[in-house]
């Protein structure tokens, strides 16, 4: 039981960079980017090919990140310069990446059994998890810092009020491309990390990633809140870990099968998306009722000074 929890936390940390990527497009840019399913596998494929050809772990991870940024830039170009609908640009890129990923690996999957995964020499396992968490947090803090720079502010304003930031001299086409690139870079890096950790890369390893990323972001926000950038990115990381723990627990339920996982994930996202807006509507309605009751009570206490004509 404890072992599977450790495993879940480890996976959650590795996938958390993907969640941060999804956070950038989905929450900051308000751009639903489906490239993720493709670029996650791109990261895995690039890392696997480099590792199996004897390159170092660092080079493989940096290359995976860069490959993701290129894929993201392509989606951004399709959307901003090609004026293609955002969802469609992501889907087009995702499909294109499927072929590209096959070209990169030359076959549907690559085994990395003779490559030692990162940090695998560290024991006991909780020390290893702490080291990994520190590495992930460093990336999170770098992202936080970036989002507070002049460039980062323009990026955030692009999702918040594009008309306003254009009137202050920012090219929103460029900020969008920057955001989508950065996002897919993180997603691909996450794909590379997963590939080295599980010792193989597979052409289908990215399927459903966008929904898992969304689930992580939404779960994180629901539990930890997202008042500031600091909390929002932390929530994405923690959300990813919580998601993996939930999955690990769900897999222990007897009548559930591993293949039901995607359905469960979709259900989590649906509930998380529907619930807040339904709750908001209900709150608003009861607030309106309360206020109008109050106002009526006040009005009946003090008769209107100008008695209306009858």
């Amino acid at each position, binding site marked *: 039981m404890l072992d599977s929890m450790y495993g879940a936390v480890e996976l959650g940390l590795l996938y958390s960079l993907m969640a941060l990527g999804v956070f950038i497009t989905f929450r900051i840019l308000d751009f639903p980017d489906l490239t993720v399913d493709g670029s996650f596998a791109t990261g895995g494929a690039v890392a696997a090919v480099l590792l199996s050809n004897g390159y170092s772990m660092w080079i493989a991870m940096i290359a995976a990140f860069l490959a993701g940024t290129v894929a993201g830039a392509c989606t951004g170009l399709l959307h901003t310069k090609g004026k293609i609908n955002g969802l469609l640009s992501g889907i087009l890129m995702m499909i294109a990446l499927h072929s590209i990923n096959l070209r990169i690996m030359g076959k549907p999957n690559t085994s990395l059994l003779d490559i030692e995964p990162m940090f695998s020499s560290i024991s006991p396992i909780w020390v290893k998890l702490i080291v990994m968490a520190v590495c992930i947090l460093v990336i999170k803090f770098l992202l936080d810092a970036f989002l507070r*720079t*002049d*460039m980062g502010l323009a990026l955030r*304003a692009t999702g*918040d*009020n594009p008309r*306003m930031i254009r009137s202050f*001299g*920012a090219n*929103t086409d460029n900020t969008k491309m920057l955001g989508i690139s950065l996002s897919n870079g993180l997603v691909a890096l996450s794909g590379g990390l997963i590939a080295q950790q599980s010792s193989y890369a597979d052409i289908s390893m990215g399927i459903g990633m966008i929904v898992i990323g969304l689930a992580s972001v939404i779960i994180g926000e629901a539990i930890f809140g997202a008042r500031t950038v600091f909390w929002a990115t932390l929530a994405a990381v923690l959300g990813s870990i919580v998601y993996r723990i939930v999955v690990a627990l769900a897999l222990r339920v007897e009548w559930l099968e591993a293949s039901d996982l995607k359905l469960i994930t979709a259900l989590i996202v649906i509930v998380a998306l529907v619930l807040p807006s339904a709750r908001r509507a209900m709150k608003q309605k009861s607030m309106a009722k309360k206020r109008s009751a109050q106002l009526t009570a006040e009005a009946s206490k003090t008769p209107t000074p100008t008695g209306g004509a009858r």
Partner: protein
Amino acid sequence: MLELSNVSKLFYPGTPDEKIALFGINLKLNPGDFITVIGSNGAGKSTLMNVISGVMTPDTGHVKINNSAITHLQEHQRSRWIGRVFQDPMAGTAPHMTIEENLAMAYSRDKSRGLAFGVTARRRKLFYEQLGRLNLGLEKRIRAKVGQLSGGERQALSLLMATFTKPQILLLDEHTAALDPSRAELITRLTESIVREMKLTTLMVTHNMEQAIRLGNRLIMMDKGRIILDVNEERKKDLTVAQLLGEFEQISGHKMTDDRVVFG
């Protein structure tokens, strides 16, 4: 300063819905001019603003700032010279970002945006002073999200942000129209004092006739995409709303129609 020569703009050209938004507009603003613009619905006031700010490109004619042509520059490329406040109080600020972050973005208007922090201690001090000029107590809420401010407060902030870097041209697009009368009056007062202090060259569209006469040193009236009346400072002093309406009917041949027009 700002010069428009022979600017025309058509909407839906070549279709049954074709509409002349601007037609042969010639307008020259001298440095320090404060021009108020009035006109009925569909007179082309907003299109004029959009053509100057680069949201739209004119079909014919030229737009120049300081004698350099900017007709084909995109909005973000020319916005270093042009400050703009929109009618919608929600339009000029980013609601999910803090007051100081919004100000930092305004501060970077005429600079290239790099990897330096947007809000530094030095800049925060400047923001604090500037917010104090509004007398709304916003400087004490510098880390509050802009979405928590009222419409009037947001419009005051928008005005400050638009004028922060002392733009060459200030465009005010009915920026008090969506506010209640007392808030509108506050924003009008702020506008007057900021424009005067910073000596900004300003073009203000308004639906308030009385305001159009009271503010600024020149008044232009538009109808069907044309400038039909241009009143200089001398004549503007003794102008009344009734005279203005009379002139409008005489020149245009129809009554002034604007569902929001305020006669003052």
